[in-house]
């Protein structure tokens, strides 16, 4: 029976939830995301309390530009969509296509991260707006940085899973792993939508 878990043929309809381990993981991860929600809510609260506390340093209107973050938003939203494609192919048991779409997701995620790093460097060099500039600076970099760290972790997670399972294909053991990684990715995406709104859009008006 244990070996069945690793066979890649003859999968049931929902391979990610077909075993008890799989459904435990699935549910446990949803709860984990509940905790993550409180984590980000606390960071958002802190940011909202400190967003006008720029002391002597630059204020929101001085640094934020919508163009770049708009592109980043589009990229991340698209990557969420491509990961949905990947999960769609997982449910149809076509492993190759799943890997392909995950590859696209990772590429988009990397692009997002690259833009974010560029953004930070730009703020620090051109505006002298850093983590230690003011309470606002600390709050901004902490909130957006936590999100960025989540993106980086998610990318490493996808890449590990893709390489590890490349040769053996989909089975009951790794299907839940792919699935929760993609859940995590959606979560990161939703958080970004809030960051885009609360930090940038509300920062412009």
């Amino acid at each position: 029976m244990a070996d069945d878990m690793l066979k890649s043929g003859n999968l049931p309809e929902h391979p990610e939830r077909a075993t008890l381990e799989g459904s435990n993981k699935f549910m446990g991860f949803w709860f984990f995301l509940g905790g993550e929600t409180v984590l980000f809510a606390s960071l958002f609260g802190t940011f909202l309390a400190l967003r006008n506390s720029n002391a002597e340093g630059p204020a929101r209107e001085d640094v934020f530009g919508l163009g770049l973050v708009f592109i980043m938003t589009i990229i991340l939203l698209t990557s969420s969509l491509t990961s949905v494609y990947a999960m769609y192919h997982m449910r149809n048991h076509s492993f190759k296509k799943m890997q392909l779409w995950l590859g696209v997701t990772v590429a988009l995620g990397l692009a997002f991260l690259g833009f974010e790093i560029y953004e930070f460097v730009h703020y620090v060099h051109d505006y002298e707006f850093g983590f230690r500039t003011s309470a606002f600076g600390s709050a901004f970099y902490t909130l957006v940085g936590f999100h960025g760290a989540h993106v980086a972790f998610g990318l490493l997670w996808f890449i590990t899973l893709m390489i590890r399972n490349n040769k053996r294909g989909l089975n009951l053991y790794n299907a839940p792993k792919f699935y929760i990684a993609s859940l995590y990715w959606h979560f990161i995406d939703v958080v970004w939508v809030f960051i885009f709104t609360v930090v940038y859009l509300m920062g412009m008006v």
Partner: protein
Amino acid sequence: MSTTANNKAGFGSALWDYLTTVDHKKIAILYLVAGMFFFILGGLQAMLIRIQLISPDNEFISAQFYNEVLTMHGTTMIFLAAMPLLFALMNAVLPLQIGARDVAFPFINALGFWLFFFGGIFLNVSWFTGGAPDVGWTAYAPLSLFSEGHGVDYYAIGLQISGIGTLIGGINFIVTVVNMRAPGMTYMRMPLFTWTAFIASVLILFAFPALTVGLFLLTFDRLFGAHFFNPDMGGNVIIWEHLFWIFGHPEVYILILPAFGVFSEVIPTFAKKRLFGYSSMVFATVLIAFLGFMVWAHHMFTVGLGPIANSIFAVATMAIAVPTGIKIFNWLFTLWGGSIRMTSPMVFALGFIPTFTIGGMTGVMLASSAADYQYHDSYFVVAHFHYVIVGGVVLGIFAGLIYWWPKMFGTMLNEKLNHWFFWLFFFGFHLTFFFQHFLGLMGMPRRYWKFLPDQGLDLFNLISTIGAFFMAIGTIVFLYNVVVTQMKNVKVGPDPWDARTLEWAIASPPPFYNFKQLPLVRGLDPLWIEKMENNGRMQPAEPLGDVHMPNNSFVPFVMSLGLFIAGFGVMYQGGMWILAGIGFAITAGSLLYRSIKDDLGYHIHKEDFDKEEGDGSNG
């Protein structure tokens, strides 16, 4: 010769077994041992505090050391003693009560323990490296920023590590309850202890991340030059207080709910009646948890949030007394007309009810925000929270330990000594803390190193210190009892208390797979139903089959060790950054290993069960 060699191998392999175990029953024992260790440590700190305050103008310990001892007493007792001891009980009995073979995530369960453990050790390393944290267990900013040395950094990083452990432990229990119940074990048939542990885990899940963020901000301010709490640079110290209490108030309910659960098991067993108002008990538990998230600012009445905010939080706080009162009356009605056996867990329960009620009453007094301007930061608050925490949580923990001791170890603690323990501890407790109410009303502030003579405070402080000694002696009696009982090692049967719930249907201690066949649950108090209507044995819900078990793993230990090492690097920086590199590499490496190495567990084949001796279990 050969026997010693054998013994040695025996010890080595037992140690390795515990370092790698993923069995919830062994993890329970790990939590118990570590929790008791920290409980004793915190108790010694309490004795130092009380000896310092035995007389006015005392010079027994220095002011700085007093601050450190006071801070570490609170921090240790809450995070490193009460929490893990409750986790010990939950691990020991929750899966058995719902008829599960294991928890949902055995690996995560072990990881949760080791993270807690290394976090606790990290915190206590501070004693040897220049001073422990000295700003109170609440670590209010900006005091926590002004504190010199690295004490507060140990606090922030140590609690961060152990907090992650608690969080994942909570998730594990939630999923276990949702997904792993035996056939017929519906939600409304779950024992109250399982219910309260379940709801407490939900509270953990939603409360601990706020602490995580608060600790990150504190760490960033102290170690990386951020300005969250620095008003000069636009920071705001009140953010810490909000985050801390958004975590902190639910935390007190995380502690008390499982204790409520223990008493809700003990009282029906020894009153020989089913719990009065079972569904209202469940409802009250859920309501307490829900309201528990909406009252945090009652710790901040004097901050100046304004009359409207204060009033709202005052009313919300008082509302919690309603579901709490429902519980008290349900316990009383369970006792009413029961055939009561005065076993020691029962005596703990009977001591708990009035003591906790007093604590609840002072709580409602404190909740009147206008009056709280007088009470706040005085010994009245100290008396309040010790009445609920010692009179509720600690009595609950010990009642639970004594009650489930046979299930955990297969032996019975000596009842006579248990009663001695109770009376010494209980009498000492009231002596220590009852008089602190008056000290507070007379104006003695909490957390002060000294009080002055001739202010009418001498006598009550002296009485309080004498009481503390009684509590210490009581605890020593308990520890002596444990040692003697385990040395004698007289085994008892599966159901020594003539109890009602599923855990008593299998051997004491249970075999590592718990249930050979999952039991069929036919109602609330399933074992009692079988005792009344049948032969007293659970009916199996499935034919005998192969049983799937998880593999042991050393990875949780290593993963936690990595964070422990990394903590020092992050704190000392400079050349020590290398430690952070090494530590994080160890943790990341073990994460990677865990991810790419398949771990499918193994099966016990049904033929192999026959080789086991008949264990008197339901089979």
